[in-house]
């Protein structure tokens, strides 16, 4: 049997009658970043908790490097760094002590640990805070320490559950940069997110989940080709001043516009032919209407795929 870095075999998790996960099958190997994408309540955290033995599956198995996490946890998590939800740290510990605790649990030799702690703290921009008590820190700073803890000991597999949650926009982009840096080293990063742009920006592959079911897994381009609605593309358009009903009706009548979805009076989503030449014709027709067009933004393939995947099951 081939050993995958991460393997889910018919994973099910039930809460009473409710299926939080239904027959998840997933095999991931290699050094890359895989985005685990799905809306809130899709089952992302549930899956990751099973992979760290925080909960047990109702049936099925979860393997890391071929070892069943729920039976041989200590062995399976030997080279795993995990951040699930938003952990809290004993508030009286300093950042250095908190990281030492995890580093020692992981078995990083003493002479390397000091250096390793500085390295991971530097990575998450928390080096200046090493000797400050965690209890005095903001939510975002704690989350950075949580990320640093997951990176201790240079794990082969890094599991991150919405790592940018709880961070301000700058923090989010810094964490994304950290993950992009990590990709250059030898890690398999499995990162859950409900933010499409985050996954398409950082990840090489995407696994899409909703209502506890895995809907697609593959390289981003494969998933896009598979799920992109044929010959159609969604374009978001914006205007300088609010549109009247009459004006939106005019847009509906433009040749090649298949559907108009009103976001608000300044923004619309129009479904159009994906052929670039036809799109350019639609753009000039829009301009000719003189409605004060300010933006014409065709969605990325992944956005289309996302919308079509999550519409199918909705």
């Amino acid at each position, binding site marked *: 049997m081939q050993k995958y870095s991460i393997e889910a075999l018919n994973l099910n998790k039930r809460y009473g009658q409710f299926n939080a996960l239904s027959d998840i099958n997933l095999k991931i190997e290699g050094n890359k970043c895989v985005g685990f994408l799905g809306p809130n309540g899709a089952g992302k955290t*549930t899956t990751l*908790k099973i992979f*760290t*033995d*925080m*909960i*047990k599956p109702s049936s099925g198995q979860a393997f890391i490097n071929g070892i069943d996490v729920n039976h041989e*946890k*200590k*062995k*399976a*998590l*030997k*080279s*795993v760094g*995990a*951040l*699930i*939800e*938003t*952990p*809290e*740290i*004993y508030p*009286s*510990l300093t950042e250095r*002590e*908190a990281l030492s*605790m*995890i580093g*020692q*649990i*992981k*078995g*990083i*030799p003493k002479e*390397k640990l000091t250096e*390793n702690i500085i*390295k991971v703290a530097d990575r998450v921009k928390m080096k200046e805070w090493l000797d400050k008590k965690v209890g005095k820190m903001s939510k975002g700073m704690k989350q950075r320490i*949580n990320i640093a*803890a997951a990176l201790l*000991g*240079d*794990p*082969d597999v890094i*599991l991150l559950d919405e790592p940018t949650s709880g961070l301000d926009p700058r923090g989010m982009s810094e964490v994304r940069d950290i993950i992009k840096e990590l990709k*250059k*080293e*030898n890690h398999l990063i499995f990162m859950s997110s409900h933010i499409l742009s985050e996954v398409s920006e950082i990840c090489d592959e995407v696994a899409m989940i909703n209502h506890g079911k895995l809907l697609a897994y593959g390289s981003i381009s494969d998933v896009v080709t598979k799920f992109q609605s044929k010959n159609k593309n969604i374009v978001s358009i914006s205007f300088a001043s609010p549109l009247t009903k009459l004006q939106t009706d005019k847009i509906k009548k433009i040749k090649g516009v298949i559907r108009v979805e009103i976001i608000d009076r300044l923004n619309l989503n129009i479904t159009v032919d994906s052929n670039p030449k036809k799109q350019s014709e639609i753009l000039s027709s829009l301009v000719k209407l003189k409605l004060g067009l300010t933006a014409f933004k065709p969605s990325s393939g992944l956005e289309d795929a996302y919308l079509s995947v999550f519409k199918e099951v909705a």
Partner: protein
Amino acid sequence: MENTNFGDKNIVPSSFMQTFLIAKYTSIDYLRSRKFLILLIIAVLIGILLTTIVGYFRPSSFLSSPLSFYSSWWGMSVTFIIILSAVFFGGDAISGEFQNKTGYFTVGNPIRRSSIYIGKFLAAVLFSLMILLVFTAITVGNAAYYFNSSSVPYQFIESLLLSVLYIVSAMGLVFFFSSMFKSSTISIIVAVILLLFVFSLLQTLVGTLAHVQPWFILTYGAQSISNVLSNPYPPAVVSLPLSARASFSISSYYVRLGEGVLIMFFYFIVTTVAGLFLFEKKEFN
């Protein structure tokens, strides 16, 4: 970039070692925590209170002999201090890991849950022992002052050892409740009610009124702490008719030393096994 990939060179420590790591970091946390300070103050205050009362009133029940001094001073106060320590350090030890989400920081690592449980248990017992040590020092100091001798009767050594066993046993029970509930408030309240009220109520019903030896009650076993300080050791059971003619009588049971040890030991084993089992099964969500 420098090669820092030593991931496969990390050897995860034995569960035994990891247990001590958890005990170490929990101890650091306790040492800086308010609860340790508060408990220390309570133990010292009880000591000061007793010192003042004995110094001012010089009651003969205290001062007739070293043994009666220890018996009057130690018996009641120490069990109260032990119960407080168990509840302070153990009440939220496991439930807090869920409620405060501190468990999320450790449990996703290559470590057995039993190491976390036992490590926290060791730290809680260690800090309770420190409190006990402080109170013992105040007690022995007073005895030395009144009897001009630093030697302690062997019965007090027995009582001290029984107190240590009671710490371990009460902590086991409190950890069990801490493992059963995810809310710290509930686990603390249940432990307090049981140790301070329910057990003694049960003992009254079962022992005093129904005339059955309450061998299954932890606090009954812990009464050996004060019984060993009586000279002679009290009889196993004393039954008194309420009035000369009535058929109705009440019984007082006095636990034997060996029974006390067994009861406390039994409680420790059963609650620890059950608590470990609950923690192992508990889902982090």
